[in-house]
C-alpha cells in the first residue's frame, strides 16, 4: 500500500538546516496497524505529515497505492487527502461553531455530496462511534473522549484507505483513551490501514508493528514479540544522553 524509498526532509531553522528525516525506507501493507515512536524531534510527526500528503519530502519516492504522490500538484494532493487519507489529531481539531454532526459532514461538503446523503452518512458514522445522541452538541459541550470520537467519525466518513493518528490519546484520560483505541482497532480490523504516532508505550504495544525513529532515522523495527524490545529501546533513547 505504501512504499517509502530514501525519504529525506530538511527544514531551515534560523539559517541552520535541520534534517528531520534522512533516508527513510519503509513499506506499509494494506490493513496494517503500525505505531511510530520516537523522542521529540525524532521526525515522527514529519513522517506522518509526509504520509498524509500535508508535506512533501525533499528527496525520495513516496508511493501511495501505486502512485508517486510526491510528484502530484497541490490540487491533486487535496483529492488524495480527501479520498484516501483520514487524519486524527491530538487536539481533535473540531470546528468549534459546528455541531458534532456538521463536523462529521465537513469532508463531504468539500467533496460535493448533497445535503441529504451527507446527513445520512454522518449520522450513521456517529452511531458507529456511539455518539448519535450527541449529534447536535457543539464541541464545547462534549468531553475529550467524545470529541476524539467525533474526529474519528469525521476522518473516516469518506471511507479512506489510510488512517493517520497523531497522539490520538495524548489529551485523554486512560478510560477515554482506551475507548478511542478500541474504535480505531475495530476499524483496522475491518481493513483500514492504521498508522499511529505516539509517545505512549501502552499505545504502541497494541500495534502489530512498531517503528522507532531517532534523529530522523529509523533505528528499530519490531513486530510481534519484538515490540516490547522496541519500546525499551525507545525508553533508553529518551532517558539516555
Amino acid at each position, binding site marked *: 500500500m505504501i512504499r517509502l524509498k530514501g525519504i529525506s526532509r530538511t527544514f531551515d531553522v534560523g539559517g541552520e538546516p535541520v534534517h528531520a528525516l534522512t533516508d527513510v525506507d519503509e513499506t506499509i501493507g494494506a490493513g496494517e496497524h503500525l505505531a511510530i515512536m520516537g523522542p521529540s524531534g525524532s521526525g515522527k510527526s514529519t513522517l506522518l505529515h509526509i504520509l498524509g500528503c*500535508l508535506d512533501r519530502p525533499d528527496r525520495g519516492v513516496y508511493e501511495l497505492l501505486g502512485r508517486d504522490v510526491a510528484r502530484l500538484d497541490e490540487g491533486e494532493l*487535496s483529492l488524495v487527502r*480527501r*479520498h484516501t487519507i483520514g487524519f486524527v489529531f491530538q487536539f481533535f*481539531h473540531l*470546528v*468549534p461553531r459546528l455541531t458534532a454532526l456538521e463536523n462529521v459532514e465537513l*469532508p463531504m461538503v*468539500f467533496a460535493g455530496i448533497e445535503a441529504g446523503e451527507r446527513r445520512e452518512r454522518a449520522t450513521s458514522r456517529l452511531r458507529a462511534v456511539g455518539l448519535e445522541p450527541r449529534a447536535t452538541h457543539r464541541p464545547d459541550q462534549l468531553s475529550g473522549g467524545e470529541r476524539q470520537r467525533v474526529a474519528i467519525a469525521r476522518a473516516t466518513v*469518506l471511507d479512506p484507505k489510510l488512517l493517520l493518528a497523531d497522539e490520538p490519546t495524548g489529551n485523554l484520560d486512560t478510560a477515554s483513551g482506551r475507548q478511542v483505541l478500541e474504535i480505531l482497532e475495530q476499524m483496522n480490523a475491518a481493513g483500514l490501514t492504521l498508522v499511529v504516532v505516539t509517545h505512549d508505550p501502552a499505545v504502541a504495544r497494541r500495534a502489530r508493528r512498531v517503528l522507532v525513529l531517532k534523529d530522523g532515522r529509523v533505528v528499530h523495527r519490531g513486530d510481534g514479540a519484538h515490540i516490547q524490545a522496541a519500546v525499551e529501546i525507545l525508553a533508553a533513547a529518551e532517558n539516555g544522553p
Partner: protein
Amino acid sequence: MSLRDVLGFAALALRGHRVRTGMSLLGVAIGVAAVVTLTALGEGARLYVVGQFASIGTNLVIVVPGKTETTGGMPGMGGVPNDLTLEDARAVLRGVAEVEKAVPFVIGTETLAFQERRRQVAVFGSTSDALEVRRLTVAGGRFLPPLEWERTSPVTVLGRTAAGELFPGRDPVGEIVRVGDWRMRVIGVLAPRGQQLGIDMDDVAIVTVATAMKMLNRRSLFRLLLQVRTHADLDRTKDRVVRLIKERHGEEDVTAITQDAVLGAFTSILGALTLALAGIASVSLAVAGVGIMNVMLVSVSERTREIGLLKALGAERRQILLAFLAEAVLISSAGGLLGLAVGWLAVRGLVLLYPALPASPPPWAVVAAFSLSVAVGAVFGVLPARRATRLDPVAALAGR
C-alpha cells in the same frame, strides 16, 4: 461544493463573530446609505430646478438687455448703451412671425402700504399676457387688464403673502393701497405660487409695465419674455429676434436665452454635482472595504488551525478561497442591503423635512451603490482569502 454550501459555511463562520461582523457590515451600510442619500439630494436639486423652469413654460425665449448692464468702456466713450424698450418688444412681436406673445418685464422694490401697514415687496411691471406666460393664476378679482403697453393704470394685483400681510383676514380686492408714491386700487389677488426663478411670486405687487417704469424710473426693460408658437422654432426664433433688435439698435446689445439652454446648463451642472456626490460617497465604501479586509485578515489568522484542518480534510485551494471570499461578500452585501434601507429612510426623512425638494435617488445610483458594495467585499476579500489558501497545512495545523 455547491454555492449553497459555500454560503452556508461562510454564514456560520460570520455568526460566530456577531459584533465584529456587525461593525464591518455597518461600515458598508454607511457608505451605501451615503451614496443613496447624497445622490438623492443631487437628483432632488436637479428635479427642483427643472420644475422651476417648467413652471414658467418651456417655449420661451428670454431677451436680456446685455450691454446696458455690462458696458465695459469708460462712460461716454464708445459703446453707447441702448435700452431694451417697449418699442423693441412691439417690433419683435410684429416682425417675428414665430413669436406668439411678447411679455415685457420690469422689476424693482417698493413699499406697499395700506393705512398703517407697510411692507417691502417686489414690484412687477408687466402686461395682461404675463398671466399665461408665467403660468400664474388669480385667486380673487382679476389680473391686469389688456391695455396698450404705454398706458399707465392705477391698478395692482397682489401676491398671496403681500395681500395677507396688509389685509389680514380680509379680501383686499377693491381697496386702495399705496405702492411707493402711487395710489392704486387692488383689482386681484394671485393664487399661491411660491418661488419662481428666485422671485417669491407670493410677495409681489403686479402693476402695468408703463406704470412700473415710471414708478421705478426705468428706461429699459428688465427682461422680455417671448412665447414661441412651437418648440421646434425656438433656436431660429432666438436668432431672428437678436438680429431684429440689432438692426434697431445698430449693434448687438442684447442676449437671448432659450429656456432649453438654461435648463440644459443647470441639468448638466447638477448632474455633475450628483456624480461628484456619488464619488465622494463611494470613497466611504472603499474605506468600508478596508474595514472588511481587516476583519477578514483577523479571521484568517484566528482560524489558522481550522484552515489547516480543512486542507487535511481535502479542501482544495479554490474551495478555501471561495469560502473566505463568500464571507467578505456576505458582509458587504448585507451591509449594502442595510445601507439601501437606511438610505431610503434618510431620503424619506428629507422629503418630510423639505417637501419642496423632490429628493429621490436615481435608479442608477441605487444599482451602482449595491453592486459597488458587493464588489467591495469581493475585491477586499481577495487578499485575506488568498492568504488563507497559501497557508502551509502543517504549520497551520500547529497554529503557526
